[in-house]
């Protein structure tokens, strides 16, 4: 199978989808390929902080300035993905006054609104802050939903005629006469909408230009093209709490360190993070000490975290980039700047540009610069419009407030649905018949799940990320099977069963890192509900096992017939006796 496109983008994270949208809006024919689901790599494994730039205001002012510019733009164009929580940089007694002052001045130098709060004022904002804090700096940090943002970018790309191809890992970079002319992908098919090709089929996609935006995997793509890209993957843990202990982003006001941030996110709070270089972006240890460190360190800022319920932990890998010969020893010292590597200039290999490094908050700016670069290469004269045109779902959210009653949704479910759906609320919720809540923890209704299935097919993990269903306290214990049921009858029962298993196992993977106290009880309950009540672990259909039905109890009447004592045998047959 072969096809051709104008620009081929590798990587379905924020950078890749941002680039695809930017180019598509400029009228360029774009195809994006992603090895897994959208956000499969780094983007789906971040803590969801919309930086004000305050974090970099001392160490990296260039990044800080970019952050505050993009922070303002994203609030505009992606309002349904952003919650402006505000943020605090909190000083503890042992943290230096000098650094606090530098942070404050740094913010001001970078045009980041910053205000000093007394300990009393800070605790008025966040009552659970430790009583011995010295003071805090208030900045416009926020929370952002990376998955919703990527999906919106992908939808916009498709709306502008682009092609988004997930579950299609690049298996080769095509070279002709010393030039990159495209890539080969293998379609990893599942049923449903996850693919355009057939399972196992390879496709050569020829392109005028290839963009390598594969994040922590950029080096792998470089290897296929025969160029050296020194990505240094660095892992970080994030621990999810079951409630929002804080409603504001809380940063520790000290120079870089592990476990120094809490981000409130929807119904949860996320503790982060560590920063440790790893060899392989796909295979690294997920260790107990990392989880313990989050709680031990951050309880210094917010003491109730010590007794709070932890739901799960997950790890992400940053695609840090080190320009050649910089020789940084410590991964935490590597810059958060992003880099465009034009392989024609750099390696004498025309036809491909790599974008690497950077931060989620500045994804749009990165996409703009990369798109400018590619357009110049291709001689295309078109303006970037992504800073002005809202993403799908983000237009006119204000007018939706009155429209909720007609969907039969009661607050707070209505409010949550509307926040998730933005301007698509009416289209999604306007269904015939009842619209019960399927995920109680997160208040997700059937209509939203059906809509997400329409978008993403049988991949319930994609459905989960679009809706948050199965992401609350019970971690899918109560809703994962009901979510899978919704795939039927469009997909056959065996596929629904497989999808349920995949989701349940995925939820388990993260929950393992939170197995003590309440969440261990929850894990045991989930195990009991699925193994005992549903017999999902030993289900003969799942195991492909033949069962000799006749060897088992055939009911009282059957056994009475066999033994010849059938006179009163139907007495307990509930179908026929009276009351």
């Amino acid at each position, binding site marked *: 199978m072969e096809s051709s496109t104008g620009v081929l983008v590798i990587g379905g994270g924020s950078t890749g989808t941002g680039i695809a949208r930017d180019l598509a809006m400029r009228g360029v024919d774009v195809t994006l390929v992603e090895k897994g689901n959208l956000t499969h790599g780094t983007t789906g494994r971040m803590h969801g902080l919309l930086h004000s730039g305050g974090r970099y205001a001392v160490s990296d002012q260039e990044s800080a300035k970019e952050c505050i510019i993009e922070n303002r733009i994203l609030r505009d164009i992606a309002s349904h993905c952003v919650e402006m929580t505000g943020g605090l940089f909190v000083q503890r007694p042992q943290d230096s006054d000098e650094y606090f002052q530098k942070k404050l001045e740094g913010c001001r130098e970078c045009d980041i609104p910053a205000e000093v709060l007394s300990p009393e004022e800070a605790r008025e904002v966040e009552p659970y802050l430790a009583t011995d804090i010295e003071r805090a700096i208030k900045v416009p940090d926020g929370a952002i939903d990376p998955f919703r943002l990527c999906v919106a970018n992908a939808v916009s790309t498709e709306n502008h005629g682009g092609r988004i191809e997930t579950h299609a890992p690049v298996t080769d970079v095509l070279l002709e006469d010393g030039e990159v002319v495209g890539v080969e992908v293998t379609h990893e098919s599942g049923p449903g909408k996850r693919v355009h090709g057939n399972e196992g089929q390879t496709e050569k996609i020829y392109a005028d230009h290839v963009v390598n935006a594969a994040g922590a995997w950029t080096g792998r793509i470089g290897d296929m093209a025969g160029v050296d890209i020194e990505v240094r993957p660095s892992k970080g843990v994030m621990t999810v709490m079951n409630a929002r202990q804080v409603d504001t982003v809380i940063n520790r006001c000290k120079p870089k360190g592990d476990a120094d941030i809490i981000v409130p996110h929807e119904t949860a709070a996320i503790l982060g993070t560590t920063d440790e270089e790893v060899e392989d972006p796909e295979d690294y240890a997920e260790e107990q000490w990392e989880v313990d460190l989050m709680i031990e360190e951050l309880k210094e800022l917010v003491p109730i975290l010590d007794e709070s319920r932890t739901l799960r932990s997950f790890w992400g890998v940053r695609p840090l980039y080190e320009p050649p010969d910089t020789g940084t020893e410590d991964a935490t010292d590597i810059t958060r700047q992003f880099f465009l590597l034009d392989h024609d200039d750099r390696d004498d290999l025309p036809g491909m540009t790599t974008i690497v490094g950077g931060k989620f908050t500045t994804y749009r700016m990165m996409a703009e610069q990369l798109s400018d670069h590619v357009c110049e290469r291709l001689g295309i004269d078109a303006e970037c419009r992504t800073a002005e045109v809202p993403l799908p779902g983000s237009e006119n959210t204000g007018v939706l407030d009155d429209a909720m009653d007609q969907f039969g949704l009661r607050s707070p479910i209505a409010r949550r649905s509307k926040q998730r759906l933005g301007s698509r609320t009416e289209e999604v919720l306007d269904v015939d018949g*009842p619209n019960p809540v399927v995920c109680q923890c997160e208040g997700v209704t059937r209509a939203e799940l059906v809509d997400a299935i329409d978008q993403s097919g049988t991949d319930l993990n994609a459905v989960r990320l679009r809706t948050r269903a199965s992401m609350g306290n019970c971690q899918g214990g109560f809703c994962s099977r009901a979510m899978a049921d919704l795939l039927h009858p469009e997909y056959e029962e065996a596929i629904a*069963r497989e999808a349920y298993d995949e989701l349940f196992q995925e939820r388990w993977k993260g929950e393992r890192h939170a197995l003590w106290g309440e969440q261990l009880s929850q*894990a045991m309950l989930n*195990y009991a509900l699925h193994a005992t*009540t549903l017999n999902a672990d030993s289900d003969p259909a799942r195991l492909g096992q033949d069962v000799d039905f006749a060897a*088992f109890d*055939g009911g009282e009447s059957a056994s009475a017939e066999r033994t010849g004592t059938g006179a009163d045998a139907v007495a307990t*047959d509930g*179908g026929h006796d009276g009351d």
Partner: protein
Amino acid sequence: MAIEDDVLVIGGGLAGIAAAVGAHEQGARVRLVSHKQSTMRQASGLIDLLGYTPDGDGPVVDPFEAIAELPEGHPYERAGLDAVRAGIDMFDDATGEMYAGSHTDKNALVPTHGGAIKPTARYPDSAAPGIASANGDTLFVGFDSMIEFDAPVAADHLAATGVPYETDGVTIEFPGNLRDDAKVTRFAHLLDRDDEVAVDGTTMPVRTALAERVKEHADGHERIGFPAVLGDDHATEVRAELADRLGASVFEVPMGPPSLPGLRLEDRLYEYLHEIGVRVSTGNPIVDVEQVNGEIDRVVGDHTGREVPYKAQQYILATGGLVGKGIDSDREGVYEPVFNCHVPHPADRYDWFEDGAFDDHEFARFGVPVDTELRPIDADDAPEYENLRAAGSVLGGYDFPSEKSGSGVSLATGYAAGELAGDRV
């Protein structure tokens, strides 16, 4: 002054109830104290003895045969096979016609609400007509507002397990204007009362209306299964009327929480305790324990801030496992919170679990180890207290979700612990 009894049972689930009955039958004066609602309402209402061996063999046809082969340390081995028989006999006496399965030692295969089949020893009368190990073309009926049971999925799944009969599923609108997320008890109470509901511009009793809606799909099916919401107080009557109107036997498919079969069972068993004269105090946790010379002297209950002492000669711990919080944990370790009995567990938290959701998890076996008199033992295998026994999910050394042995262990160890305690007073 303490409240004084011969035997004090702490915990109000299946094990605690069985223990109270066992002690009572030995002539002891018995009190049962429980803190929270029991986990029965979360369970399906099926009484599993043993469906799979600890090695994973199964489904087991004869659970009694398999129980006789269990390794040392398994709660069934500790209590002994006679205790298993005695415990299940007690259950049969207490529940009477409400439960079926006692006519044979064999397990029945029951369809779950997901459509898989599950081996079980006793099943509610309401589920009896639907057992998958009895033949009969089957129609499942689900309600479009109820997400817990998707009838077409369950029917297709049941077919995929290879049952030798036809299965079909249909989803209908439940008559009457119930809210989209009405609780299962709302359905049951509506059917209990047989309220008039508005249907197609007229009104009629809800059972009639429901049967009318199902009728057009009923043709040819010998049995028709509904989610387990067919009445609470008048469940038998509701089913009988639907069966009559539909010309087929009618059954319920057991579901997860909140489980009406579980609630009905809990009601019946507490009624039984009342009938035989066991005293019951609910809603109060035990917060303190006083011991004298290696024996429990008395325990202290917290009655909304007021401390109330309970004194007995013999005590039975039946507070449940990780789900019921009879076993608790923190980042440092696993413990039994009432008597602080020894709970063996790996020191490293990352050894408590395995990578796959249904793998062989160590945490599933967390609980107190006991001697053959069901007394919790310490790290040196000596009894923690001479007059303390333990029963049910608080016991360690077995993986009830994988074995499908939870109810059976509760009944066997509960009844045996009760008998032993009652015998000592």
